[in-house]
């Protein structure tokens, strides 16, 4: 009669909602697999096209990952979602835009294209950091000890303020970003043609992330950041100026966003006041996907999301006969997020929080 006892035990342990969750997850998985198989059979794409999707996704994912780092760094240290981070990204883009236009006016742009590009990166980093520092000082620092929802609301407020400040300052229409002649055309990676801006994005994002990781892991400031993230009071007792470390964290995250802003602008060659919103949400998704607060997680999440978004519509939806599958790109992204969180509730690399519950 052992099986009966087992059955009784399982019945007590799991209830209907567990079954529904699993059924839900499995059915979506089944549909996705079916769609993928059908797509591979029916669509005319060869392996080159598929690889191209992956490379473009990798590039898009690099931008997401850079922005996601800002969310994750701030979350790691303050346990708050810096909702205004997308706008910090946007201000970086505007900063580099105006400097770029000025450089173009004085002819510097055409004479020293590489140097100009480097200047743009630096300017965007500085502008983004400045905005981030102001936001931290005005909207977050006074609320260090407030309940968790409070800084979230100020973050949303800061996001609106920044977005509509940009709108009132710089106008509601899109502004053209200076064209970069050296980034025209495409390069050949593994026999696959990919636009130069995309290639640049892949390279720069990888470099920045490696740099950031090393910084946080090995420098004194980086270690102080990790210490502050764990326990602010004890960190202060070590002689660490907690407020300063927090500001440094914001600057670090904002610099990443600044770099992402230039890469993004170079690809889309225009800058708008609400351009931070969608990448912001996506990067946030990526950060959660990887396990928020976890630096490698944010990178992984960013690339994962970028590739999935680029590959998903063609791979899954086309096979299912969905019209205009590219419109549903975000649906795929968010569905994947739900799926990942169902099976790994704290993200891909997130710590199993449950272990420290009680």
């Amino acid at each position: 009669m052992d099986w009966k006892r087992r059955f009784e035990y399982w019945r007590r342990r799991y209830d209907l909602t567990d079954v529904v969750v699993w059924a839900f997850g499995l059915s979506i998985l089944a549909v996705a697999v079916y769609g993928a198989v059908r797509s591979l059979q029916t669509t005319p794409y060869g392996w080159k096209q598929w690889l191209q999707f992956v490379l473009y996704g990798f590039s898009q994912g690099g931008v997401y990952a850079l922005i996601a780092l800002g969310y994750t760094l701030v979350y790691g240290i303050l346990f708050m979602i810096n909702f205004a981070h997308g706008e910090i990204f946007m201000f970086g883009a505007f900063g580099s835009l105006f400097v770029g236009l000025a450089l173009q006016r004085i002819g510097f742009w055409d004479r020293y294209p590489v140097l100009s590009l480097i200047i743009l990166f630096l300017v965007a980093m500085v502008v983004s950091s400045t905005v981030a520092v102001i936001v931290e000082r005005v909207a977050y620092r006074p609320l260090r000890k407030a309940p968790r929802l409070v800084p979230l609301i100020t973050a949303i407020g800061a996001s609106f303020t920044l977005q509509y400040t940009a709108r009132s300052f710089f106008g509601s229409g899109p502004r053209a970003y200076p064209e970069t002649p050296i980034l025209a055309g495409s390069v050949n990676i593994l026999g696959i043609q990919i636009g130069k801006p995309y290639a640049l994005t892949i390279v720069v994002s990888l470099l920045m992330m490696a740099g950031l990781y090393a910084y946080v892991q090995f420098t004194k400031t980086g270690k102080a950041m990790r210490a502050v993230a764990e326990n602010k009071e004890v960190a202060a007792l070590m002689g660490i100026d907690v407020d300063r470390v927090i500001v440094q964290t914001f600057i670090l995250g904002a610099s990443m966003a600044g770099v992402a802003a230039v890469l993004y602008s170079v690809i889309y060659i225009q800058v708008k006041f609400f351009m931070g919103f969608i990448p912001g949400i996506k990067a946030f998704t990526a950060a959660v996907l990887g396990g928020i607060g976890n630096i490698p997680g944010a990178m992984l999440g960013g690339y994962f999301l970028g590739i999935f978004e680029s590959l998903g519509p063609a791979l899954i939806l086309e096979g299912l006969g969905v019209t205009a599958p590219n419109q549903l790109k975000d649906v795929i992204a968010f569905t994947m997020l739900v799926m990942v969180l169902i099976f790994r509730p704290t993200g891909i690399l997130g710590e199993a929080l449950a272990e420290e519950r009680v």
Partner: protein
Amino acid sequence: MAMLELHNVHAYYGHIHALKGISLTVEKGEIVTLIGANGAGKTSTLRVITMLLPPTEGQVRFEGEDLTQYPTHVIVRKGIAMVPEGRGIFARLTVMENLEMGAYTRTDKKAIEEDLERVFTLFPRLKERRRQLAGTLSGGEQQMLAIGRALMARPRLLLMDEPSMGLAPILVESIFETIQQINRQGTTILLVEQNAHMALQIAHRGYVLRTGEIVLQGTAQELQANEMVQKTYLGMA
């Protein structure tokens, strides 16, 4: 002049009046202990000294200098270190990184090396485990790390908040021995303890706190002989 001097200190947690006019002194080279029940204000007193809980009234003087004007992280530079309640080690940093954080304010590389050696001599276990994440240490080892980390700041005054909490009785003895050893090496110690028995054995002087006030003070011998202390804090009927 006393090394540390608190005069008529008042402090609040929100609306709770945690300290109601605490005055105490710690002389150079002493071990002074604060005893009392939970909520008596022992931890609050330490938090006031490090300005984690800025007093609303009164003075805190260290080597003649008023501390109330500084934020916490500057106080450490003045020569005060604290072993916080519940150890407060950085679980996701390695043992070595924890010790480095202890020396955060210092730039004298050679002296830091020396102090590291000193800590490792005091606690050989830490040397064996220096590459390990601090969170994986056992309770006793974590306490050693917390003390070692505080020593890395080369403090003249060491504040210790319940170093025996949660340790096996067998370890408690050795921790108290270590505290005495540190004191003999020249560090002044202000010790908060629940375990009044042990604390009074190693301390020179002590203060008894109750609901935010000092109700009794004296040398360790005097306190041990006091009837009220025996009954309430030493559990002798």
